[in-house]
């Protein structure tokens, strides 16, 4: 792409302006919305830098999920912050400036941006991932190969982190009483008829799209993490428009709790299965001796499914915990 740099610089300008505005603005609802916009612009940069899978995730998680959680929190707490006194801002600014100067001084040792001969690109692992994975794993999306197979151990850890965080949030905010739908919610229902009809049309489409993302992750951008968040955001949209009660009817917390654990169990179970089959932990070649490519396909499919289930259930649980807190009070 010949026009890489002008586009890059324009997006950077948007990011810097947004970040400065976030630092300055004291209306926290506006700050949360701007942080969503920041994530969206950042996802554009990721696309520009060829990280399509990351852009996918950042858009769904950073711009969608995080913003919704911030808004839920603000609805539960104060939406304005007090002005920052100089005794706080001056030392902080000094520390940030010093750290920034040190970082920029250190950046002189970083390789040239986007060059083909950087240590990153010259590392033997690059060849392994970009050339040999086509025969070793047999799927076109290298990010999925690395995520689910080469670094499957690491991804298991990440899945457990999400599981743990969901459990911790449930311990802090969960166990809320089921409240009756009050008048304010009803007014949203009767007055926003267009919104209701369109949402009803869209939600099934979003859920099917999430399944497509889940199972198309081998061939294009997508996979369990992204699909899980998209699936959850479909149901969150449903809950936002039709009320929490309706969302709980579709996905009761009791079921979600089991699903969060089930996803991790599927992932770990695949590892145990490979051990039983005589391979190393999470070495999918052992799943189908003689046909490593088939084994890899099966292993990645199951592992991604586990990730998808855990992420979808955890995200929904987070949303229901935060949104349900208001009902309980």
């Amino acid at each position, binding site marked *: 792409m010949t*026009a890489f740099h002008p586009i890059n610089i*324009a997006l950077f300008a948007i990011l810097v302006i947004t970040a400065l505005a976030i630092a300055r603005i004291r*209306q926290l*609802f506006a700050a949360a919305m701007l942080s969503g916009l920041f994530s969206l612009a950042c996802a554009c940069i990721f696309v520009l830098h060829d990280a*399509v899978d990351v852009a996918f995730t950042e858009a769904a998680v950073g711009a*969608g999920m995080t913003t919704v959680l911030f*808004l839920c929190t603000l609805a539960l707490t104060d939406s304005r912050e007090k002005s920052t006194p100089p005794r706080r801002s001056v030392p902080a600014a000094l520390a940030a400036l010093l750290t920034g100067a040190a970082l920029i001084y250190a950046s002189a040792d970083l390789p040239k941006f986007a060059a083909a001969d950087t240590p990153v690109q010259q590392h033997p692992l690059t060849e392994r991932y970009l050339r040999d994975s086509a025969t070793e794993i047999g799927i076109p999306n290298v990010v999925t190969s690395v995520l689910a197979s080469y670094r499957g151990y690491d991804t298991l850890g990440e899945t457990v982190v999400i599981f743990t965080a969901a459990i911790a949030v449930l311990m802090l905010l969960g166990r809320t009483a089921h409240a009756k739908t009050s008048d*304010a919610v009803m007014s949203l229902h009767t007055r926003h008829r267009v919104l209701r009809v369109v949402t009803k049309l869209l939600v099934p489409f979003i859920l099917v799209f999430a399944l497509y993302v889940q199972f198309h992750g081998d061939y294009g*951008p997508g996979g369990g993490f992204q699909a899980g968040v998209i699936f959850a955001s479909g149901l969150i949209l449903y809950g936002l428009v039709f009320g929490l009660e309706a969302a709980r009817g579709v996905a009761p917390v009791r079921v979600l709790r089991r699903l969060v654990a089930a996803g991790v169990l599927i992932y770990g179970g695949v590892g145990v299965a490979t051990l039983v089959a005589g391979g190393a932990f999470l070495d999918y070649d052992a799943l189908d001796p003689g046909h490593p490519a088939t084994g890899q396909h099966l292993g990645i499919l199951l592992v991604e499914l586990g990730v998808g289930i855990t992420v979808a259930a955890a995200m929904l649980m987070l949303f229901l915990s935060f949104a349900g807190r208001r009902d309980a009070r």
Partner: protein
Amino acid sequence: MLLAATLALLAAMLLALGRALLGPTLFDRILAVNSFGTKTVLFIAVSGFLAGRPHFLDIALVYALINFTGTVAVLKLTHHGEFGAAGAPEQQEGDL
């Protein structure tokens, strides 16, 4: 033409960002952020063609979806009361 389109979209994004920063009401900001989101959808679509690899349009679809969900969430959580409680009117001013 694709390049011109991309640059025009970036300019439009900057204008929308300007409105999001200026406010003055919360609704102006929501409108501007929503409009910014639509422009990023178009940006992803056009830049895929510009880079000569337009196979990743799924991302643009996700952007459109997230944009809609986000707007509904902001509307619901700032305006219509927070899942059952009465709306808090003091949250409606949007000054800096």
